[in-house]
């Protein structure tokens, strides 16, 4: 038995809201698509069907001291949106008001900004094809609504914290963001999923619109517990001269699937898609990346790095589509993984489909071990083998974190990475 058997019953329990029409068509899509089986090409290495909980439910809201849960919460400056067990917590959130900026609950704002929802909600993601995006759309609970008006430079970063309690089991949440950065605006967003124990399943969708000459810096942190299963869609559409930088950092999780997609809709847009993942024990981490060059003169860079130890598995699928009209495209992709044990494995699949004839595209994929020469150099200075391997692994992984612009975030992640790799330099 799985939750899909009771999906209509579950759907009946959702309150009617402004999103009801979209929800219904999404439900229809999801029922037609079903859950992806292992025969589904895009889910070949990630067998998710058997991992899902039987029910679609969420534990009751609970109170918690956000400040004690997130040690860096108080030390950072910025807007902080807090979602507790999927619900927006106004009491825990801190909003630094600025003219031209709206931040808050998606659910509340869907009533306040019907025009923007009409124009942007569910337009970046394709629910006729994407099983989990359809499911998310039908059952959206809440998430962040971030709306930056034309010419607004958002001074402080916006943090979106998703916190889940420890006790409730089989939690399956559908969270959803809508991020709109209008022409000439600029914003930095950090989204952070945290929990400590218990089986959790997140199905998360984030839609991002980067307007003409706007810039969005977006970091998605997955510092999960090892019982977390998570499917994420980060779907971005870029208009002319837009700049978009997305970094995903996955440091744990039972099964994590990231679908990070960027659609180049306007000329001279730039997308940087970076990712770091550290897998241990039986972690399974899957990054599916897509950059769709639809118009000429755009640039995209994908840089993914992974470290896999014990019996962990990794998947990288990086697609670059260059459509017929997208001349003078410059697209680059690199996927590198280090395997620290004989049982760890990595499946890497670059996929370039190029229909234009005047383009520059390159890709590289490497799966290997820590360099013997580098290791010997450290050993020859008296550093023991385990520490030396740790240092080299850290050095390899740190490139992704070093590229993050926000200094406080960089420091925070650097520490988390060292902890995860058990090194103390």
């Amino acid at each position, binding site marked *: 038995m799985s939750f899909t058997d009771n999906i209509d019953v579950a759907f009946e329990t959702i309150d009617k809201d402004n999103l009801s029409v979209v929800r219904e068509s999404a439900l229809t899509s999801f029922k037609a698509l079903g859950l992806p089986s292992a025969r589904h090409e895009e889910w070949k290495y990630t067998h998710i069907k058997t991992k899902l909980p039987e029910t679609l439910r969420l534990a009751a809201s609970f109170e918690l001291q956000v400040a004690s849960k997130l040690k860096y919460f108080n030390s950072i400056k910025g807007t902080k949106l807090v979602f507790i067990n999927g619900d927006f917590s106004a009491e825990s959130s801190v909003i630094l008001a600025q003219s031209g900026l709206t931040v808050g609950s998606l659910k509340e704002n869907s009533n306040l900004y019907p025009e923007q929802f009409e124009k942007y909600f569910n337009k970046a993601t394709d629910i006729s094809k994407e099983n989990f995006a359809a499911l998310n759309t039908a059952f959206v609970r809440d998430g962040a609504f971030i709306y930056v008006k034309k010419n607004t430079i958002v001074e402080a970063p916006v943090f979106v914290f998703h916190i889940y309690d420890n006790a409730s089991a089989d939690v399956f949440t559908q969270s959803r963001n809508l991020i709109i950065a209008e022409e000439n605006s600029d914003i930095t967003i950090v989204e952070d999923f945290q929990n400590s124990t218990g089986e959790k399943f997140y199905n998360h969708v984030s839609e991002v619109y980067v307007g003409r000459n706007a810039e969005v810096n977006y970091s998605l942190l997955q510092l999960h517990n090892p019982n977390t299963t998570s499917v994420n869609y980060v779907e971005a559409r870029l208009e002319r001269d837009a700049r978009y930088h997305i970094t995903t950092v996955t440091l744990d999780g039972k099964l994590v699937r990231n679908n990070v997609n960027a659609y180049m809709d306007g000329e001279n847009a730039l997308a940087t898609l970076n990712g770091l993942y550290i897998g241990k024990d039986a972690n399974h981490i899957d990054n599916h990346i897509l950059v769709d060059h639809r118009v000429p003169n755009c640039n995209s860079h994908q840089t993914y790095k992974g470290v896999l130890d014990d019996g962990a598995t990794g998947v990288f699928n990086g697609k670059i589509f260059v459509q017929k009209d997208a001349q003078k495209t410059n697209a680059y992709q690199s996927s590198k993984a280090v395997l620290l044990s004989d049982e760890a494995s990595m499946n890497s699949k670059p996929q370039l489909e190029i229909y234009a004839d005047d383009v520059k595209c390159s890709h590289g994929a490497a799966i290997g071990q820590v360099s013997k020469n580098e290791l010997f150099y450290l050993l020859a200075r008296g550093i023991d083998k385990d520490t030396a391997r740790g240092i080299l692994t850290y050095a390899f992984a*740190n490139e992704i974190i070093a590229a993050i612009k926000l200094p406080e975030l960089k420091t925070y992640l650097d520490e988390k990475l060292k902890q995860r790799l058990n090194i103390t330099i």
Partner: protein
Amino acid sequence: MLEIKNLHAKIGDKEILKGLSLKVNAGEVHAIMGPNGTGKSTLASIIAGKEDYVITAGEILFEGKNLLELSPDERAREGVFLAFQYPVEIPGVSTTNFMKAAVNAKRKHHGLEPIVAKEFLALMNEKRQLVDLDKSYLSRSINEGFSGGEKKRNEIFQMAMLDPKLAILDETDSGLDIDALRIVADGVNKLKNKHNAFLVITHYQRLLNYIVPDYVHIMYDGRIVKTGDKSLALKMEERGYDWIKEEIGV
């Protein structure tokens, strides 16, 4: 301090060292010269503990201990230091952090607490000046984007930080301009004392004008074929290696 007896070693099926013997006492500087491919760098790598080689006969004693039974990191902590011919670049690790890990590994081995931050910074500052290395290099990734001369100076800096008993310089002078050579040699001369020893591997006599050896060994085909004082190096420079080949009858 170091005693190598009848050492035979191979890599794959190729025999490289064919019965090498050498004795180095504390307070001495030994130079090893010889043509390319004669096994000089192999000897340096084997003393430091590189795993690519198989020792088929002989032994190496370091302060009476069987060196071949120790792992490379244990050897380093016991006081063996190799200045690499080709120092590797390691992006993502700063020289500062690297040295902190190395200094503390050695201290732990000798039953000492980790070095306190202030003391460590003072030590770094003192030692980097020995080889005229700018402060900014220490916070940069190890050797990343360094010139050949900067890499070699960084090796001597690391040597100074770790204060080894036996330092092996593997062609540290190759490819250095005269200014860099003088800096490196000055650094070595300042570190030299009666408790430590240096094994200087080189192609060129030039280095030995700056680091004056007590003994010069000529290595040929996996063995030391001739030993003398510093005048032997000058003779080599004058007459080339063919003279040695004739003398030993090959």
